[in-house]
C-alpha cells in the first residue's frame, strides 16, 4: 500500500467485471489521481483480472482489495462458506472507512456489493435493501438508460467513467508522429466472443500481403492460452512459410505485462474489439479495431486520438480484406487513414460495406468519432444531438458542432418525429401538472388519500403512454428512459420532499424535450430549404 501525502480522504472504486472494463477504469482513474493526488484511491476488483494488471494498476491506485471469486464460489456442499467469504471480503473493505464508493461495474452482483459496503457517499449503480435500483448521479442514470440499451449512447465508456468520477475534462495531446518509428505491429485476431472475430484465413491473407510489401516489418500475433489452438493455422499456412522469421507467435506465451511492454515499443495495434486494444491504447500505441457483431464503436474504440475502427454495416457480410490491408498500409506509412487514398486502391463497393471511424478529442475533451466516408444517418444524427443535450444537462458543457448532412429519406423520417415531440411534450406537461397537484395536496394539513391516489394513477397512466410513444419512436428512447430512471430514483426524507422533486424532474424533462426538438428542427432546416422557408413564414405570421 502506498502512503498518500496530506491525505484528504479515501475513494473506493468498485470494478469487478473483466479485463477490458478494468483497463478503461484505470484510464479514467489515472486522470482522477493526477487531478486529486491528495485522495487515496482504493480499487476493489476481481483477483483473476486485477493480478495480471497489477503492474499498471499500482501506478494509479494506492491500494487494491481483491475479490477471489474462485474461493467464494467453490463451496460444494453449502452456501454458508461462500457467504462467510463474502462477509469477510466486505468487512475487509469496510475497515478502510471510505469517504466515497464509486461503482463502475455494471453488473447486478456489483450493485449488491456496493449496497453492503459502508461509505459516506455513493456514486454509480447500487440498490436499496429491497433491491430497488438507487442511482443518484446523472452519468450513472445515463448508463442505465442509454448505454445498457440501444445504439444511441454518444459517449466513450471512459468519458462516462470520467463523468461519474468528476474528472475535469482537459484537452488531450494529439498523437506525436515520430519519424523513427518501430517496425513492429501487434495483431490480436481473437476476441472474447466468437461473433466479434474474423476467420483466421482472412488474417493469414492480410499478414501475408503486409509482410510481402514491407520487407522489414515484424508482426507479433498475441493471444491468450485459450487461443493457442489457432497457432497451427498461422504456422502451417503455405502462404506464410517464407515469412515465418518475421512472424512472432505470442499466443498464450506472453503475460499481459509483456504485451504492454511490447506495445510501448511498437508501431500499431490491429485486432478485434478486445482488452488487448484497450491495453495498447493505454500504452499510447495507435490502434486499428476491426469490428464485427454487437460492437459499438462509439463506446469502445480504444481511448486516444487517431485510433481507427472499421465497422461492418451488414453483419451477414465479411470485412473486405483489401480495405483492411490498404488501411494498415496507410497507417504504417502515414499514421492516418485518408478516405481519398483508400478510394484509389479499394473498390467503392468494398468501401460501402463499412463505416470507417477516426477518433479525436473534441474541444470539450470528449473522445469523438468522425466517419471518414461522411455517412450520416438518423442514428448518428441523434447521437450528436444527445451528446449536445447530455453534456449540457449533466455537466453544463456546451458542445458546438455542425449539423449532420442527411439524405432526403432520412429528413422525411425525421419529420415524422415532429408530432411525437408534441405528444411527448403534452404528456410531460400533464405529468408536471399532476405532480404539482400531489405536492399541493400534501401541503394541506390533512391531505385526502383518494385525491392523492387519483393523481398517482394519472401519473402511472402518463408513464405507460410515454413507453408506448418510445416504442413507436425509438430515437426518443434515451430521453424517455433517462427520466424514467430519474423518476424511479426519487428520494427524500418524507413524501412531500419526494413530490417536490418529482415536479422539478418534470420541469427538467420538459426543458430537455424542448431543446431536443429545437436541435432536430435545426437539422431539418439545414438539410431542407423548403422546410426552412416554411418555418420562417410561420414565425413571421
Amino acid at each position, binding site marked *: 500500500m502506498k502512503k498518500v501525502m496530506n491525505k484528504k480522504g479515501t475513494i473506493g472504486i468498485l470494478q469487478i467485471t473483466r479485463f477490458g472494463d478494468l483497463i478503461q477504469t484505470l484510464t479514467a482513474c489515472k486522470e482522477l489521481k493526477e487531478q486529486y493526488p491528495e485522495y487515496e484511491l482504493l480499487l476493489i476488483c476481481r483477483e483473476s483480472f486485477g493480478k495480471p494488471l497489477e503492474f499498471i494498476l499500482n501506478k494509479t491506485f494506492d491500494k487494491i482489495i481483491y475479490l477471489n471469486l474462485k474461493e*467464494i464460489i467453490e*463451496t460444494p456442499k453449502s*452456501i454458508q462458506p461462500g*457467504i462467510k467469504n*463474502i*462477509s469477510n471480503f*466486505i468487512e475487509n473493505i469496510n475497515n478502510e472507512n471510505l469517504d466515497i464508493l464509486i461503482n463502475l461495474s455494471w453488473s447486478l452482483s456489483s450493485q*449488491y456489493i456496493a449496497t*453492503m459496503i459502508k461509505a459516506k457517499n455513493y456514486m454509480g449503480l447500487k440498490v436499496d435493501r429491497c*433491491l430497488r435500483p438507487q442511482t443518484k448521479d446523472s452519468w450513472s442514470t445515463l448508463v442505465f438508460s442509454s448505454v445498457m440499451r440501444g445504439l444511441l449512447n454518444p459517449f466513450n465508456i471512459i468519458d462516462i467513467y470520467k463523468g461519474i468520477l468528476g474528472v475535469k475534462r482537459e484537452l488531450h495531446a494529439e498523437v506525436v508522429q515520430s519519424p523513427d518509428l518501430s517496425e513492429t505491429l501487434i495483431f490480436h485476431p481473437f476476441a472474447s466472443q466468437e461473433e466479434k472475430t474474423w476467420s483466421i484465413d482472412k488474417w493469414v491473407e492480410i499478414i501475408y500481403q503486409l509482410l510481402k510489401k514491407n520487407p522489414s516489418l515484424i508482426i507479433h500475433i498475441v493471444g491468450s492460452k485459450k487461443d493457442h489452438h489457432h497457432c497451427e493455422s498461422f504456422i502451417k499456412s503455405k502462404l506464410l512459410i517464407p515469412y515465418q522469421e518475421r512472424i512472432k507467435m505470442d499466443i498464450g506465451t506472453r503475460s499481459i505485462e509483456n504485451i504492454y511492454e511490447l506495445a510501448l515499443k511498437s508501431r500499431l495495434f490491429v485486432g478485434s474489439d478486445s482488452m488487448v486494444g484497450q491495453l495498447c491504447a493505454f500504452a499510447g500505441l495507435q490502434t486499428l479495431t476491426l469490428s464485427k457483431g454487437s460492437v459499438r464503436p462509439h463506446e469502445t474504440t480504444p481511448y486516444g486520438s487517431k485510433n481507427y475502427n472499421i465497422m461492418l454495416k451488414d453483419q451477414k457480410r465479411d470485412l473486405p480484406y483489401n480495405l483492411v490491408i490498404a488501411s494498415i498500409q496507410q497507417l504504417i506509412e502515414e499514421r492516418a487513414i485518408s478516405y481519398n487514398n483508400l478510394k484509389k486502391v479499394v473498390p467503392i463497393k468494398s468501401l460501402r460495406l463499412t463505416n470507417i471511424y477516426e477518433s479525436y478529442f473534441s474541444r470539450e475533451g470528449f473522445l469523438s468519432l468522425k466517419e471518414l466516408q461522411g455517412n450520416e444517418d438518423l442514428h448518428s444524427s441523434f447521437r450528436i444531438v444527445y451528446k449536445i443535450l447530455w453534456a449540457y444537462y449533466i455537466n453544463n458543457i456546451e458542445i458546438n458542432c455542425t449539423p449532420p448532412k442527411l439524405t432526403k429519406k432520412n429528413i422525411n423520417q425525421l419529420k415524422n418525429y415532429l408530432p411525437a415531440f408534441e405528444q411527448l411534450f403534452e404528456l410531460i406537461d400533464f405529468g408536471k401538472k399532476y405532480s404539482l397537484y400531489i405536492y399541493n395536496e400534501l401541503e394541506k394539513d390533512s391531505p385526502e388519500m383518494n385525491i392523492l391516489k387519483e393523481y398517482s394513477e394519472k401519473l402511472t397512466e402518463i408513464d405507460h403512454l410515454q413507453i408506448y410513444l418510445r416504442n413507436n419512436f425509438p430515437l426518443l428512447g434515451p430521453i424517455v428512459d433517462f427520466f424514467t430512471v430519474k423518476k424511479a430514483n426519487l428520494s427524500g426524507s418524507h413524501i412531500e420532499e419526494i413530490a417536490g422533486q418529482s415536479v422539478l424532474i418534470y420541469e427538467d424533462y420538459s426543458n430537455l424535450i424542448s431543446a431536443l426538438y429545437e436541435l432536430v428542427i435545426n437539422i431539418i432546416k439545414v438539410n431542407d430549404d423548403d422546410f426552412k422557408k416554411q418555418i420562417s413564414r410561420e414565425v413571421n405570421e
Partner: protein
Amino acid sequence: MSNLAKELETEITNINNKIKEGIELNDQEMFVMVLSSLLNEESNE
C-alpha cells in the same frame, strides 16, 4: 441439482417473498444475493 443450488433456490424464494411484501433484506440475505448473482454471472461468462 447440487445441494448448493437447492439451498440457494430456497433462500432466493424466501428473499423474493420478503421483497414482494416490501420488507428490507438483512445482511445475511444480501450476502445470499451477492453469492447468487456472482454464480450467475460466472456461469454466463
